[in-house]
């Protein structure tokens, strides 16, 4: 199905330019982000203790990351004790190979999938397809992306770049090729489209023997995995198949069951702007373990997943590094691993709102993508190097982040890392020369004063100057004057005025 990939994407400014020209995209994004922003504001506004929850979320993540090895080992022990099996993957390829092998050993040729960023990140669907295994995405937006042979453009709503008319067309065209066709006379009302997805996927849910999911949280002290969702496709995947394979980044672990009381409040309100998402499922291994809880266990409840029982008989947890340990090594950049994938930062970002997710060339778009992707992928490509600059540092992302990731600070930090990395080049980039020159001028007031006088003179000579501004500047500065008049240095600088009038 989907053969689209983010590999070889152009760097951000170029990709953004194309996206900006897509008027349909601009309209879809403006509408969708404005809607979700409003919902989030309302949901967050209902809680008096929001700031305290954010601080607790941040602190729990900090505690976790600083002792990550210990929590992962505890998690492994608890999951294993509860009948699950834990696998470790150093990178995307290894993680994909583990999953492919696990599916092969079941003898199945198809599986159902719950939306998962980790499996996007490792390119699992492509690896499965190569092994002759069909992976059916079951989240509505993922289904739209998969049927449209498209790329996701948002963490929560991967098809945010599509409107109802486009989605109707995709369903009519592609559903029949992969299962139950869309009904004749399908309209474009969201309820009708959701109904078509329900019918298309139901037969797949009922016959699936294997499911692949991610995990929103993994609780170290109980071995519990948590999936937060809305549509019920997650519940279908976690309940009906015999084998469940969950792929999760190593940073998804939280120390204790109690810690969920923070994240289950922060995530839905930040993400969909709901007090609580419709469905949250938790499971601990295959439920065959001795259990650690103190609740009211009875014979009817807990117990093994057999034939449509409480859940799968086999549970595999694949823990993915994939650049996370490298990210962890940077004490400033590390906080990007706090991320709980709520997407609030995307929805408030004025850059994301205008260019959409594809321009970021990564499964993680928006402000969090701009700090996470270059760190996870190592920052070697031109695209990665352009990402930390894909922000005005306006700070709207930090303000809404439920785990207080200081995205502007990390962006600036990564910029510095890139600049410092470039200092080894024998031939400096023009920008570096310009910055060095500016620093030299600004380090001494006399040099600045001289530059101001020269600037005032040059300003008088500039071509195309009208009234208050210059309409055409040369070289890289033309990027400014393509659409904006440029200010010209004043005839008399402030310091010259002060000297003239005050001394």
């Amino acid at each position, binding site marked *: 199905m989907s053969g689209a990939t983010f590999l070889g994407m152009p760097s951000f400014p170029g990709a953004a330019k194309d996206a900006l020209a897509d008027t349909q995209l601009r309209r879809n994004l403006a509408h969708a982000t404005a809607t979700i922003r409003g919902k989030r504001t309302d949901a967050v506004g209902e809680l008096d203790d929001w700031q305290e929850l954010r601080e607790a979320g941040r602190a729990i993540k900090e505690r976790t990351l600083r002792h990550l090895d210990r929590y*992962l080992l505890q998690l492994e022990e608890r999951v294993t004790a509860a009948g699950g099996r834990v696998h470790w993957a150093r990178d995307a390829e290894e993680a994909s190979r583990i999953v492919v092998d696990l599916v092969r050993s079941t003898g199945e040729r198809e599986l159902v999938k719950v939306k998962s960023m980790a499996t996007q990140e490792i390119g699992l669907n492509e690896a499965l397809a190569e092994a002759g295994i069909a992976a059916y995405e079951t989240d*509505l937006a993922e289904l739209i992306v998969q049927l449209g042979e498209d790329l996701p453009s948002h963490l929560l*709503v991967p098809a945010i770049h599509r409107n109802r008319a486009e989605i109707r067309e995709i369903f009519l065209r592609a559903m029949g090729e992969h299962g139950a066709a869309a009904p004749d006379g399908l309209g474009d009302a969201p309820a009708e489209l*959701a109904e078509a997805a329900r019918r298309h996927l139901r037969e797949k849910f*009922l016959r699936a023997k294997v499911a692949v999911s991610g995990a929103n949280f993994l609780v170290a002290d109980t071995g519990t995995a948590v999936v937060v969702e809305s549509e*019920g496709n997650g519940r279908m995947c976690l309940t009906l198949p015999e084998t469940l394979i969950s792929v999760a980044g190593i940073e998804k672990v939280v120390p204790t069951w109690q810690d969920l009381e923070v994240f289950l409040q922060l995530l839905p309100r930040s993400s969909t702007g709901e007090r609580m998402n*419709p*469905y949250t499922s938790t499971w601990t291994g295959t439920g065959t373990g001795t259990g650690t809880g103190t609740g009211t266990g009875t014979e*009817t409840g807990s117990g093994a997943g057999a034939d449509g029982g409480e859940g799968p008989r086999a549970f595999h947890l694949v823990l993915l590094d994939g650049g996370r340990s490298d990210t962890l090594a940077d004490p400033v950049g590390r906080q990007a691993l706090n991320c709980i994938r709520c997407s609030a930062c995307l929805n408030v970002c004025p850059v994301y709102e205008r260019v959409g997710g594809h321009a970021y060339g990564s499964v993680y778009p928006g402000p969090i993508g701009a700090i996470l992707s270059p760190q996870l992928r190592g920052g070697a490509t031109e695209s990665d190097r352009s990402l930390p600059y894909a922000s005005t540092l306006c700070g709207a992302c930090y303000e809404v982040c439920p785990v207080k990731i200081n995205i502007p600070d990390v962006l600036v930090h990564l910029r510095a890392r890139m600049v410092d990395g470039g200092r080894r080049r024998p031939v400096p980039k023009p920008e570096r020369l310009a910055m060095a020159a500016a620093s030299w001028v600004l380090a001494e007031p006399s040099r600045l004063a001289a530059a101001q006088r020269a600037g005032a003179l040059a300003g008088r000579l500039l071509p195309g100057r009208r009234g208050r501004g210059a309409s055409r500047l040369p070289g890289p500065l033309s990027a400014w004057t393509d659409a904006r008049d440029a200010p010209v240095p004043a005839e008399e600088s402030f310091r010259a005025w002060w000297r003239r009038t005050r001394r």
Partner: protein
Amino acid sequence: MREAAMSEARAEVLHRIRRALADVPDDERPQDVPVARDYSRSAPPGADPAQAAKLLAERLADYGAAVRLVPEDAVARAVADALAARGAARVVVPGGFPREWQAGLTTEGTGTPVRILSDDPRVPVSELDRTDGTVTTAATAIAETGTLVLDGGPGQGRRALTLVPDYHLCLVRAGQVVFGVPEALARLDPARPLTFVSGPSATSDIELERVEGVHGPRTLEVIVIV
């Protein structure tokens, strides 16, 4: 060979993590990283259980569930009425669901006769797909978020029962309702399979417009017993 690669991967990932945390002092313990839990962990002072039940009902209704507050002695009648109004003729009732609350269903002359499927032996999933609904109890409920929590205990059944049929009627006692998320988690046993349900299934994937009812039950009805 797989096992060997696995343990090698495990060792390497753990090694990389430890190397990455070179800035963390060796003698630092997790509890040395302070976590201030200054957020609200209990009901607001003076809140009484009746208020919590009322808030639960409001919040559930806000997300598209049909909610009724019903006194104990009218529960059987309310269950029968709900199923009759729904036109549900075949419903699954899990083991441990109170017999007295099913009383209205076995009485002749209350409307459409309802056939009750017990889940013992387990109803196959394909069969579940053809039933008209499920009637269950809940383990606890969270007022502030409008959430029911099922833990597979008596009267709640396995997860598939409240997932595959298109209609879920859930009964919860006012005494089971807590105010917020922290209180609920403290009551629940993580070893059990937990399902938190806040309204019927929903999606906002198309233009962020909320549509209620996708894969899970499209209709959620709740009877809060007061």
